[in-house]
C-alpha cells in the first residue's frame, strides 16, 4: 500500500523535467528566439526563461482573447442583461449589494408568485450573487464606482479568463505543459462555453464552469500527491461549486465514480484513500451550509453513490490493513464473513430507508438524464424548455468543430498511458459526452473536457511528428537515412501544416458562431431590412417601462412564466408566475386562463386579483418566439391538473389534426383569451404587400376571427411593432349581471 515512488521529492522531479527539456533543445538544435546581434548579447536569455516567457505570452493572450470575444453583444447594442434568468440574478444581486448578506439570506419575495410569494433566500444558489456583490464592494472600496449592472454584465467574461488559466493548470497536471497551453487556447474561444458566458449573460453557469474546473484541478492534485492540503483545497473548491450551480451533482457523482474505477482496476492506494475521505467528509459538511442544498447530501439518491463509495473506501483500506497483519487462512475466513454481513446489512437498510421514504428517489430533472423519455411522458414543464431537448449531430459540430474529431484521439492517448489521473479525465469525457447527448444545455459541461482532451491529442500528434523533422545542425554532418520511412521530413512538415490549418479554421468557425449565433441579448432584437440597414426592436423594454410608469404600485400582472423575471426586474410589478416554475399548479391555473374563453378566464383572473395581462405577439414583425407558438404548451400544462381537466389539447386542432389560426382553425382556439388578446385590432392591419389584412407573418396565414370586441379586457398599451401587448382587466359591472 505504501509506494516508494510517492516519496520522490518534488524538487528532484522539477530538475529532471528541466534537464529533459534542455536535452530536447540541444537535439532539435533550434532555440525559440533567433540569434540576437552581438551588441544585444546581454539579452540572450536562458532556456528556462524563454519557456516561462512563452507560457506567459500564450496564457495572457488566451485570457485577453476569451474576454474580448464575449463582447460582441455589448459592442452591437449596449451593456444590458440578456435573456430571462439573468434578470432574476441581477435583481437579487442589487438587493444583496444594497441590503447586505443577512437580509438577502432571509429574503421573502412577495412580489412574485402572487398570492404565494417565494422564499428567495432558501431556494437559490447564492454563489453568483455573492461573487458579484463582493467584486462590487471591492471596486467601490478602491473608488472605482461602477454600477451593479456593469459588474453583472462583465462578470462572466472575467471568469472565462480565469477558466482559461485553470484549464491550463488542469491539463498540465494531466499531461504536460504543451497540452496545457493548447487546451487553454482552445477553451478561450470554444463556442459551447461562450454560449452561456457572453457579456450580459449573467447566469450561474458563467462562474460554475470555473468552479468545476478548479475542483477537478484540486482533485487531480490530491490524487497525485495524496496530501491533506490539496484534498482540503478540493473540498473548499467544491463548496464554491455547490454554492454556484445545481450541476454540482455531476461532480459529487463523478469523483466517487473515479474512485470506484480505481478500485476495480486495482489502483487503489493510500493516496486515493486520503484524498477521497477528506474531500467527501469536508465537502459534504460544507455543501450542507447552503440552505438550498440543506440535508439533501444525506437524504437524496443523487448523493448516495458518494456515500456508498465512501463506505467502500473505508472497507477496502481496512481490508488491505488486515491483509498485511493476518495470515492468509485467517484473512480469508474473516473476509468472507465480513463481506456477506456488510452486503446484506447495507442492502436491507438501503431498501428499508427507500421504502420508508427517508431516502428520496432521483428528482425529475436529474432522473430525466438517466431516462430521457421520462420528462416527455410525465413532466411537460421540463419537456417544454428548448434547452432540455436532446442534441443533434449539428449541435455537436456547431459548438465544438474540430474538437469533435480530436476528442477520440485524446482518449486514445489517455488509454495508451493509463494512470490514476488519466482514468479521471476519461471518465469525465465519456460521461459528459453522454449527458451532452441527452440535453443540449449540458454541452456547456462537455466543452471544457473536449478542450482538455483535444489539447492532449494535438500535443500528442505534434510531439511525435516534430521529432521527425530534420535537424538543421551545422555542427554534425551525419544524417541517418531510414529506409523504411520514405519522406520523413516532408511528411512531418505536412502533418504540422495540416494541424495548423485545422486550428486556424477552428478559430474562424468559433468567432463566426459567437458573432452570429450567441451574441443576441434576446431583450433587444435586430433585423436587417431589404436595403441592408438594421432595424432595432426595443419593444420589450418599452412595454416594461410603460408598466413601471403607468400602473399602480400594487398592480398584479399576468403573463406566461417566461417573462416573469423580466417583469419583476424592469417593470417592478407583482407577477403570478415566473421562470422558477416551482409551482406547477399555479402555472397550470394561468394556462387555463389563457386557454379558456373570455368569461371563464375572467373568473380565474378575478380569483387571482389580476389587473393587467401581458402577451407577446410576433405576427406583425415575424418574431417567431411569441405566445401563439408557445400556446400548445399552455394548453398542455393547463390541462395537466384537476381544475383544468376540461381543457383537452385535441380541441385546439382542426379535425385533420393541424394547428391553424385561419378560418379553418378550431373554433375553441379562435375564441380563447390568448387568441383574442394577440389578434385584437390585428384584422385591420396590412402586414405584407399582396396579402389581405390581418395576415400573420409567423404562421403565414390570414387570421380567422378578425372583427371582435373584448368584453372583459380593454387594451392598455401596444408597443411600436406590436410585439408586446398589455391589457387592463375591467372591474366588475356596477349593477351585477
Amino acid at each position: 500500500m505504501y509506494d516508494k515512488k510517492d516519496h520522490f521529492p518534488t524538487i528532484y522531479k522539477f530538475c529532471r523535467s528541466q534537464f529533459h527539456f534542455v536535452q530536447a533543445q540541444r537535439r532539435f538544435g533550434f532555440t525559440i528566439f533567433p540569434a540576437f546581434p552581438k551588441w544585444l548579447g546581454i539579452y540572450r536569455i536562458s532556456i528556462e526563461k524563454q519557456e516561462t516567457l512563452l507560457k506567459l505570452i500564450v496564457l495572457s493572450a488566451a485570457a485577453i482573447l476569451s474576454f474580448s470575444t464575449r463582447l460582441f453583444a455589448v459592442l452591437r447594442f449596449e451593456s444590458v442583461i440578456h435573456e430571462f434568468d439573468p434578470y432574476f440574478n441581477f435583481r437579487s444581486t442589487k438587493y444583496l449589494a444594497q441590503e447586505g448578506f443577512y437580509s438577502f439570506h432571509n429574503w421573502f419575495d412577495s412580489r412574485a408568485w402572487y398570492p404565494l410569494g417565494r422564499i428567495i433566500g432558501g431556494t437559490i444558489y447564492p454563489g453568483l450573487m455573492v461573487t458579484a456583490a463582493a467584486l462590487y464592494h471591492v471596486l467601490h472600496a478602491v473608488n472605482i464606482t461602477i454600477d451593479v449592472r456593469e459588474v453583472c454584465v462583465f462578470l462572466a467574461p472575467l471568469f472565462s479568463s480565469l477558466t482559461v488559466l485553470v484549464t491550463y493548470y488542469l491539463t498540465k497536471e494531466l499531461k504536460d505543459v504543451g497540452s496545457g497551453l493548447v487546451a487553454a487556447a482552445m477553451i478561450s474561444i470554444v463556442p459551447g462555453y461562450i454560449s452561456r458566458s457572453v457579456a450580459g449573460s449573467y447566469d450561474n453557469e458563467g462562474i460554475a464552469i470555473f468552479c468545476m474546473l478548479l475542483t477537478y484541478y484540486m482533485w487531480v492534485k490530491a490524487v497525485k500527491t495524496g496530501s491533506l492540503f490539496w484534498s482540503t483545497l478540493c473540498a473548499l473548491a467544491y463548496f464554491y461549486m455547490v454554492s454556484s450551480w445545481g450541476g454540482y451533482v455531476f461532480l459529487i457523482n463523478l469523483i466517487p465514480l473515479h474512485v470506484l474505477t480505481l478500485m476495480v482496476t486495482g489502483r487503489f492506494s493510500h493516496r486515493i484513500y486520503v484524498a477521497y475521505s477528506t474531500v467527501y467528509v469536508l465537502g459534504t459538511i460544507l455543501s450542507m451550509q447552503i440552505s438550498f442544498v440543506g440535508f439533501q447530501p444525506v437524504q437524496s439518491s443523487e448523493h448516495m453513490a458518494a456515500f456508498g463509495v465512501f463506505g467502500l473506501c473505508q472497507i477496502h483500506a481496512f481490508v488491505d490493513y488486515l491483509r498485511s497483519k493476518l495470515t492468509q487462512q485467517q484473512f480469508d475466513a474473516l473476509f468472507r464473513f465480513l463481506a456477506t454481513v456488510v452486503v446484506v446489512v447495507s442492502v436491507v437498510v438501503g431498501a428499508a430507508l427507500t421504502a420508508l421514504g427517508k431516502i428520496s428517489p432521483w428528482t425529475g430533472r436529474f432522473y430525466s438524464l438517466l431516462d430521457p423519455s421520462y420528462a416527455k411522458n410525465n413532466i411537460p414543464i421540463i419537456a417544454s424548455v428548448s434547452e432540455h431537448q436532446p442534441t443533434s449531430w449539428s449541435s455537436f459540430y456547431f459548438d465544438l468543430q474540430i474538437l469533435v474529431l480530436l476528442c477520440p484521439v485524446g482518449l486514445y492517448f489517455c488509454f495508451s498511458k493509463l494512470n490514476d489521473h488519466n482514468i479521471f479525465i476519461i471518465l469525465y469525457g465519456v460521461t459528459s459526452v453522454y449527458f451532452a447527448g441527452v440535453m443540449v444545455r449540458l454541452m456547456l459541461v462537455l466543452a471544457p473536457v473536449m478542450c482538455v482532451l483535444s489539447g492532449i491529442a494535438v500535443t500528442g500528434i505534434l510531439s511525435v511528428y516534430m521529432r521527425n523533422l530534420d535537424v538543421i545542425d551545422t555542427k554534425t554532418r551525419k544524417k541517418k537515412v531510414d529506409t523504411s520511412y520514405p519522406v520523413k521530413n516532408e511528411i512531418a512538415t505536412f502533418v504540422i501544416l495540416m494541424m495548423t490549418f485545422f486550428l486556424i479554421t477552428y478559430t474562424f468557425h468559433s468567432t463566426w458562431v459567437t458573432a452570429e449565433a450567441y451574441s443576441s441579448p434576446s431583450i433587444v432584437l435586430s433585423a436587417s431590412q431589404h436595403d441592408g440597414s438594421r432595424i432595432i426592436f426595443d419593444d420589450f423594454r418599452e412595454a416594461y417601462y410603460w408598466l413601471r410608469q403607468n400602473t399602480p404600485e400594487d398592480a398584479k400582472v399576468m403573463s406566461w412564466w417566461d417573462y416573469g423575471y423580466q417583469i419583476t426586474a424592469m417593470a417592478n410589478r407583482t407577477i403570478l408566475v415566473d421562470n422558477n416554475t416551482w409551482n406547477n399548479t399555479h402555472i397550470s391555473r394561468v394556462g387555463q386562463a389563457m386557454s379558456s374563453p373570455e368569461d371563464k378566464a375572467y373568473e380565474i383572473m378575478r380569483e387571482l386579483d389580476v389587473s393587467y395581462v401581458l402577451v407577446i405577439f410576433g405576427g406583425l414583425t415575424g418574431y417567431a418566439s411569441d405566445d401563439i407558438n408557445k400556446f400548445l404548451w399552455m394548453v398542455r400544462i393547463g390541462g395537466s391538473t384537476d381544475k383544468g381537466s376540461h381543457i383537452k389539447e385535441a380541441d385546439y386542432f382542426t379535425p385533420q389534426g393541424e394547428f391553424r389560426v385561419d378560418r379553418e382553425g378550431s373554433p375553441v382556439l379562435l375564441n380563447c383569451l390568448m387568441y383574442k388578446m394577440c389578434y385584437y385590432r390585428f384584422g385591420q392591419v396590412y402586414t405584407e404587400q399582396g396579402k389581405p389584412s390581418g395576415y400573420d407573418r409567423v404562421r403565414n396565414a390570414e387570421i380567422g376571427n378578425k372583427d371582435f370586441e373584448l368584453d372583459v379586457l380593454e387594451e392598455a398599451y401596444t408597443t411600436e411593432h406590436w410585439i408586446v401587448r398589455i391589457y387592463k382587466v375591467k372591474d366588475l359591472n356596477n349593477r351585477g349581471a
Partner: protein
Amino acid sequence: METIYKIPFAVLEVPPIKIKKPSFIRIPTPMVVFGMVLFSYFLVTGGIVYDVIVEPPSIGSTTDEFGHSRPVAFMQYRVNGQYIMEGLASSFLFVLGGIGFVVLDKANLTGLSRLQRTMLLTLGFFCVIAAFFGSRIFMTIKLPGYLK
C-alpha cells in the same frame, strides 16, 4: 464465528457440484475499452437520444414541381434538428477523423516495413482530410448561411 456459519447448514445440504468462473471472462484491456468508448461516442454524437425521443424520419421528403416526392438528406435551416441518416453519417465522419489521427500516430512506430508505413500514412491522411472537409461540407449543406 463458526457457530454462526453452521446455522444455515444445519438445515440446508450443500450439493456436490463445483462451479468455476469461465476462463474466457477476463477484465478487458485498455484498448478494448477504448473501442467500446469509441462505439458509444459514435452513437451519441450521431444524435441517437434525439432519434429515440423525437422520432424523426430516416430521411425527409419533399415534392418537386412535377409532384414526384424527392428525398431530402439534411433537415435544413435548423441546428437543433436532424434526420436519423444524417446524424449517423456525420458521427461516422467524426469517428473516422479520430481513427485517422490514431493511424497517423501508429505510422511512426519502429519496426514497420516501407510498404506498411506508406499504407498507414496514406490511410491516415485520407481519413483525416476526408473527415475534416466532409463534416465542413455537411454543415454547409445543413445551414446554408454557414460562415457568411
